[in-house]
């Protein structure tokens, strides 16, 4: 006698439904892809490159070749880019040093990438822009020395001023219309400091007068500690809160238990 098959109890369904999961997966991917195309903000690319040497003049040379097409020949700005007069060396060091400038794409937001210029070139560009008009300077070593800063105080300031965008553990978060606050775990103290005093893109300005340098160092101390702090509970699951926990609970908690139940219910041979 042929062995009994009960298609819908899941005992022996392999034969006829082998491809069913694939079909479902393909359909799901199709739908997801479609939604993505429909919803994704469309980026369009702009090329940029450049090599040169230091000093204000050399910085100017670099500027003319790499930046002036958007920011204007005298950094006065154009419809493609804001004026750089008065933005200060800190802004240049942050934008160029994190690879955001020169911009490779103009999506909803200019994103961090591998810097196009080395440290020396970046310094030259910064020096040139700083020579145009006074603006926030690159913080020096003493301003960034957070070794004795109060981590706990920094955490409190961070949670009031920063966590609503960058998340409680610096994992980043969504802003409107495809923009986002980036994750802060790999950001250097200098770039953090510069971002706070210059307010790049969507980020507001936290000047030293409204948020003293000491507070900023405390925030940096908190974030640096948080990035290298061991997770006492095991895998961190992205430090994004209960959503990833829910996924893991269903998949590896209930999923594993259902697998055990299937084993329990299957007849032994």
């Amino acid at each position: 006698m042929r062995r009994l098959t009960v298609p819908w109890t899941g005992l022996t369904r392999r034969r006829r439904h082998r491809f069913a999961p694939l079909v479902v997966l393909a359909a799901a991917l199709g739908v997801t892809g479609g939604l993505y195309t429909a919803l994704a903000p469309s980026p369009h690319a702009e090329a940029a490159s450049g090599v040169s040497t230091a000093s204000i003049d050399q910085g100017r040379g670099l500027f003319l070749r790499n930046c002036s097409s958007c920011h204007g020949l005298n950094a006065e700005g154009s419809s493609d880019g804001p004026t750089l007069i008065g933005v200060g060396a800190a802004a240049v060091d942050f934008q160029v040093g994190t690879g955001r400038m020169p911009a490779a794409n103009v999506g909803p937001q200019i994103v961090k990438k591998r810097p196009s210029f080395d440290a020396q070139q970046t310094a030259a560009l910064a020096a040139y822009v700083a020579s145009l008009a006074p603006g926030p300077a690159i913080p020096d070593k003493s301003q960034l020395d957070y070794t004795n800063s109060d981590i706990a105080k920094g955490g409190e300031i961070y949670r009031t001023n920063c966590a609503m965008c960058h998340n409680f553990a610096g994992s980043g978060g969504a802003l409107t219309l495809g923009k986002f606050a980036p994750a802060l775990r790999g950001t250097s103290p200098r770039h953090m400091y510069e971002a706070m005093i210059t307010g790049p893109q969507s980020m507001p300005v936290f000047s030293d007068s409204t948020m003293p340098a000491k507070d900023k160092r405390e925030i940096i101390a908190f974030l640096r500690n948080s990035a290298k702090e061991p997770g006492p509970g095991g895998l961190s699951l992205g430090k994004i809160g209960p959503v990833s926990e829910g996924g893991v609970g269903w998949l590896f908690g209930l999923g594993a238990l259902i697998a055990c139940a299937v084993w329990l219910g299957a007849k032994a041979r």
Partner: protein
Amino acid sequence: MAMLEKAAAQVGGTIDDRFGAAGWIKKTARKVFPDHWSFMLGEIALYSFIILLLTGTFLTLWFQPSQSEVVYHGAYTPLQGLKMSQAYESTLRISFDVRGGLIMRQIHHWAALIFVSAMVVHLCRIFFTGAFRKPRETNWIIGTILLTLALIEGLAGYSLPDDLLSGTGLRITEGVLLSLPLVGTYLSYFLFGGQFPGDDLIARLYTAHVLLIPGIFLALITVHVMLVWYQKHTQYPLPGRTEKNAVGYPFFPVYTAKAGGFFFITFGVTALLSSVATINPIWLFGPYKPGEVSDGTQPDWYMGFLEGSLRMMPPWEIRAWGYTVPMNVLVPALIVPGFMFTALGLYPFIERWVTGDDREHHILDRPRNVPTRTGLGVLAISFWLILLAGGANDLFAITFHLSINSITRAFQVLIIVIPPISYVVTKRICLGLQRRDREKVLHGRETGIIQRLPDGEMIEVHEPISDTEKWMLTQHLSRRPLELEPDTDDNGIPRRRLLLSKARARVSRFYFEDRVEPPTPAEVREIETSGHH
């Protein structure tokens, strides 16, 4: 051995002398339980509840349910010297200073997530197989109450540590309470003991979380399980199973070992998960302060559908005669879940009214054989899933680099469009599957072998299926719509409640108009005698 037996006999005798338990034990030990993996889903929930009681008791030994302000001087540097509530401080102490405290916290929280997810999957199994039908409606109602209570119990539980995330959740709870017309402010002030956040809430939630709700749980779960025991478990329509028997393994020893062993499996899996994966890292969130908030503020997954419902509701607020009704909160946070759980609880009675079926059912339905019910179930699940996904719209945005505004608008459309589509598609799939079953009974299984007849015609060879399989594919009832009763009774007197009767006929048509009747033995024989096609 003889000694042991003698001792056992003595103990048994002592017990029976006092309780007369022999008859009960004789019956119970051999009581039969049908065996299937899907019957273990409810057990996962039950066992998770026991795990929650055990680990929860451990946590109460150190937890301080108090909002009194203290300054932290514990072991964890990033919170050193900050002001916080005793509740938060004692949770930190459990996590870092009590050995095994963190693993117990993690087991407790993971078990809570698994508890509710097991309840949901269990509910789906009951629904799609029609296990809620007479005589089991009471257990369905109890299950609905248990699920509702589980959500409240979960909310109370994750609010206890008084961290930034849970405090934000309570702030939202306050906003939801305030939205209630007329009584909102009063309810909120009574719950919080005055203004938000007040000093009383954590202690009150604690009583609810460790005493009140678990007590109700314990009582309801006891009744739930006793009813399963007393009414006997349902079984799938396999050979030899009928409405008048129960086929399976005896409670002692097979089911004792299987079900008892499964408790240890559930506990073990939860412990293993808790040993490797962090859950609710409250030390990262920081203590609650009303001016602070973090991006990605979401509740535990089981409250996610309410979060999504709040996020996708349009900004509709009614202001009239000096009073305000914030429909943008009232509808998504109270009316929508109220409707969902009411519909859930009433479903067995709705279906009973539609079918006019008053018989007992112990043989489960194959979901395809009840296409409308299955379709409605998938409709409800898709509605719930879209709400759930909507609660994580910001994470979708940042993970897939999408615009959060477009995602929210898309969800606003999907929540209206997808559920009816899911219903129609599911129903069509069910009917298609039924049609395939019918074909199989009539003509046998397609073998994929093509044969050329002498006259040149190409046919596919069909392999006949066994009688057993024929029975399995045709054993179900194919319901037909209720006939509309005549407007007048036999004496020509107009019927009362005519409208209701008409409505009933209409709903019945909605349920059973599209159907595929299983072939009768007569039809099969006719085809077989008229020569194989």
